[in-house]
């Protein structure tokens, strides 16, 4: 098969099998990209994944772009990304229409009220997991706390916090180096 359709189909398959976000994707990537297709070594995939985590955007998309680019240049990067989002487009669009058709029913509204509580708990668990990795010392904790308080009590855009935190990180680390 030509590399571009192959990239699209393989990443569409990875997209369907990813259930619950970027982290769940790693074992599937390992099987499809490393073992079946030989598009990357285990180490390379680890690197792509790590870079995907520390660049803006969805980790799954970043990793797909990386693998695609290596195999098929710029077109490969784009095609692999389109492949990984394709199943979501189909499934969510179909489901969204269905849910909209039933959303006026009282029991459906009650069910979603229950689901919202569950979503709170699931997001809380995600925050804990992320915070455990992110809060490495008291300065990082202060950044976390400041962002929580400021974004709850002000209308500042999240963009401001992201840019500010990146600059602050560079500033703090530069000062540390100077002191040492």
């Amino acid at each position, binding site marked *: 098969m030509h590399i571009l359709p192959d990239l699209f189909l393989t990443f569409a398959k990875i*997209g*369907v*099998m*990813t*259930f619950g976000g*970027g982290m769940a*994707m790693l074992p599937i990537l390992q099987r499809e990209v490393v073992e079946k297709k030989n598009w990357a070594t285990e180490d390379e995939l680890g690197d792509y994944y*790590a870079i995907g*985590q520390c*660049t*803006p*955007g*969805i*980790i*799954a*998309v*970043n990793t797909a*772009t990386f693998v695609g*680019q290596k195999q098929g240049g*710029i077109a490969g990067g*784009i095609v692999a*990304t389109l492949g990984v*989002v394709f*199943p*979501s487009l189909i499934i*969510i669009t179909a489901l*969204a229409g269905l849910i909209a058709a039933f959303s006026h029913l009282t*029991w*459906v509204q*009650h*069910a*979603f009220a*229950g*689901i*919202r*509580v569950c*979503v*709170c*708990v*699931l*997001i*809380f668990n*995600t*925050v804990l997991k*992320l*915070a455990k990795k992110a*809060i490495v010392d008291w300065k990082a904790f202060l950044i*976390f*706390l400041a*962002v*929580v308080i400021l*974004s*709850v009590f002000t209308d500042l*855009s*999240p963009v401001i916090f*992201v840019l*500010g935190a990146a600059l*602050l*990180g*560079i500033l703090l680390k530069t000062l540390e180096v100077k002191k040492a």
Partner: protein
Amino acid sequence: MTLLWLYWEFFKTGLFAIGGGMATLPFLQEMGVATGWFTAGQLADMVAVSESTPGPIGVNMATYVGFTTAGVGGAVIATLGLVTPSIIIILIIAALLKNFRNNRYVDAAFYGLRPASSGLIMAALISLVAIAMLHIDLFRETGSLLDLVDLKSLILAAVLLVLTRWVKPTKKLHPIVFILASAVVGAVFSFGA
């Protein structure tokens, strides 16, 4: 015009959301308030559906928000907007920076970015809790703390928290199990009524 605006809003989300799919939540919340395209309650439902369907959560949420705002075309445009910055940034990194991961400045920036990203999601969670589990309007009227917290929701949240964090056999279960169970509990006990 809406499609162009939608593309731009999701481009921004893709550019600034750092640390995975849930990191898009604070941006989507702000988007809902700024544009009026969807309410915070609708967004909470979209998060639930995105967690329970195949595909990366961030992509699912973008598709759903896009569809809610402008139909099938909106779903496609929102998703493309979300992935455009990723494609551009990754292609540049792949071409130029062999040692991106070991770059001192990148490392330092992420020292600040990671706690900030967690903080943003935490703040998004707080406003979600206010919608899902509190009656702020009723509390303003009566001033009674008993009216502030929705008791049924509080009990469900406590049970779910224990099951997802401490009980060994249920801890590893997929989120969809808890979402479906909560839907049943919500329907049976008339949540939100």
